[in-house]
């Protein structure tokens, strides 16, 4: 607390460290790690990573993960957690698939179903967590098992959707102007992204703005940082918590539809482990599990880091299924420990 009397490097370090907010510090770590990793991939894995399409393919494959991670970051910033998102994504894709193929449904109806499922999960979980004070982990663990079980109740066998309007939507490619590469025949091929990526980027921008410049966004940080003092500031803590879970639920619903657009099929085993990847991305992106610290841009880079390392693992020839699990867990572990160490060190410096 008493910083005036200090001299030398220690005081400079304290000042710099103290002034940089936790959010910015962790965000910087994430972005630096991502660029180093991508540079490393280009240097060590050859030219594949230099092609713009490689980068856009990472986006294409992970659009749904980006959206769920944004939702999770918001819940985590507010001091909660939601591990039901993977189950919700699977449930949404299965329900939409059944609706489109067996009931001759329309795209609009499918989107409504997707968002509806998300809203239901968000409202129920949010109510249980915020108004009944149940631990979010228990509630959403039950939510995850419920969603997974419901998916098999909706339909057991996996199948591909053949609805014409949907297949057209699924195959729509948005050309990215200015990026492209020459293929083996020497023709110039434009880089493309799927519709899901555009949705994901819109979600990222929207929630970046909400978190930074709206009352809701600031109260999410306040509640996550210290619920007691947020209450004294006149923030409706329960409602904020409820809204964080509601937002996460809706985003999980949207992500479910985006995922469905990417894979074009319904299956009970879809998006297995997605909640873990989403939590890992948020943590890598600098969101603190204790709440109050986090950034949507960081989350975005967290997803990119995670999927880049997966790409590196698979292009390094380690394509056995277990390597992905182990690398993600290792990254998660490292970043958790970094967070823990950084924050405790900072606390010590400030309270010296």
């Amino acid at each position, binding site marked *: 607390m008493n910083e005036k009397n200090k001299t030398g490097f220690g005081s400079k370090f304290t000042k710099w460290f103290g002034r940089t907010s936790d959010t910015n510090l962790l965000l910087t770590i994430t972005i630096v790690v991502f660029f180093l990793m991508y540079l490393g991939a280009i240097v060590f894995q050859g030219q594949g990573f230099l092609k713009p399409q490689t980068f856009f393919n990472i986006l294409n494959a992970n659009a749904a993960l980006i959206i769920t991670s944004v939702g999770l970051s918001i819940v985590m910033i507010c001091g909660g*957690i939601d591990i039901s998102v993977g189950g919700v994504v699977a449930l949404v894709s299965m329900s939409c698939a059944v609706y489109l193929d067996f009931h001759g449904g329309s795209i609009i109806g499918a989107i409504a179903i997707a968002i509806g499922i998300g809203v239901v999960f968000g409202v129920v979980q949010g109510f*249980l967590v915020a*108004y*009944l*004070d*149940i*631990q979010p*982990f*228990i*509630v959403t*663990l*039950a*939510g*995850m*098992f*419920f969603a*997974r*079980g*419901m998916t*098999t*109740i909706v339909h*057991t066998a996996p199948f591909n959707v053949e609805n014409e309007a949907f297949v057209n939507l699924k195959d729509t490619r948005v050309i990215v102007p200015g990026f492209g590469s020459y293929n083996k025949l020497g023709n110039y091929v434009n880089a493309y992204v799927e519709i899901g990526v555009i949705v994901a980027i819109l979600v990222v921008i929207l929630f970046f703005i909400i978190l930074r410049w709206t009352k809701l966004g600031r109260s999410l940080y306040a509640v996550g940082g210290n619920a007691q003092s947020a209450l004294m500031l006149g923030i409706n803590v329960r409602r904020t918590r409820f809204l964080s879970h509601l937002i996460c639920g809706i985003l999980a619903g949207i992500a479910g539809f985006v995922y469905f657009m990417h894979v074009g099929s319904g299956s*009970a085993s879809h998006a297995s*482990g997605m909640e*873990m990847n989403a*939590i*890992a991305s948020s943590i890598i992106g600098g969101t603190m*599990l*204790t709440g109050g610290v986090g950034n949507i841009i960081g989350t975005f880079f967290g997803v990119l880091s995670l999927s880049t390392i997966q790409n590196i693992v698979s292009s390094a020839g380690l394509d*056995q*299924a*277990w*390597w*992905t*699990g*182990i690398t*993600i*867990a*290792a990254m*998660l*572990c490292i970043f*958790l*420990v970094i967070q*823990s*160490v950084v924050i*405790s060190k900072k606390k010590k410096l400030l309270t010296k």
Partner: protein
Amino acid sequence: MDSTKTKKISFNKQLLIPIAAIIALAIFNLIVDPSFFKITLGTNSAGNPVLSGYLITILDYGSELAILAIGMTLVTAASGGQDISVGATIAIAGSVILRVLCGNNSRPDTLQAPIIVAFLVACVVAMLFGAFNGILVAYFKIQPMVATLILFTAGRSIAAWINNNELPIISEPSFGYFGGYIPGIPIPTPFFIAMICVIVIMLVLKFTTLGLYTQAVGINGSSSRLNGINPQFIKFLTFVILGLCVAVAGLIKVSRLSTINYSVIAKDIEMDAILAVALGGNALSGGKFNMTASILGAYVIQFLTTTLYKMNVNSEALSAYKAVVVIVLVVLSTPVVRKKLSQLWGKLTVKQAVKEVA
């Protein structure tokens, strides 16, 4: 005199929930199909006398859960969170047992090492993984559920890696005793193993300070530190004990099949174990616990699972029903709802009293 009286009351209250659940399930089954309770003495394929029937199935398959519930109760009490990696660490422990028994050949004709050695190695490995979780939780102060998320994600992959992703099969019949029947004894062995574990933990709780310290740390970590307890070490210790429980459960699991399926073995068991603790009336946010209630809770879960199976519920869809049960239980146990219920109860009794007076 006074202390024994209060002890008796709290004892009854905690045990009330699982016992009520057992009675409810029993009545339900009695109405739907009374043959649920039939136990028959038959012989299995090896020609040994065995008891069969749904009740025996419950005792048999509830055993792993009861063993896990012991460790999970301690972890819950000390750290106020749960270990969600138990399923994955069971896969690791089982994989280690098979690896030691099989050596380099995945289809050995004879065991390459005594079973007890394999089991001890598995114990050490499982305790190391428990210690890993414990260190993250106790010393790095990461929330238990998030810290154990790491092994939850990686555990099954590690298990597959231990055996080079092969599926070893053990043909030695004596290995099957742990998950099946010992010749001549008609009661399934897992039940005996579970009982041994229960007796051991009861003795430990009675004759050591483990139970007291765990509860003290769970109720208030910093005040327990002021009283000379090392809360970090106690938290760490509970995770190591859970690791030991996991190794025992892993032995039973792989012994049942004499082989292993990395992605399916002990799937969703973490949910059941947490549910057992919750059903035992223990606060999931830590603090006081009742071991007997947790163990009873484990058998209640198995009772529920067996009942659902008997009603031809798809094994994949089972989790949806269980999730509903968890939510109902947890909602009923929250202070807000409890208060409302007791208010309601109070109003009813007041009305009755008013009526009586009138």
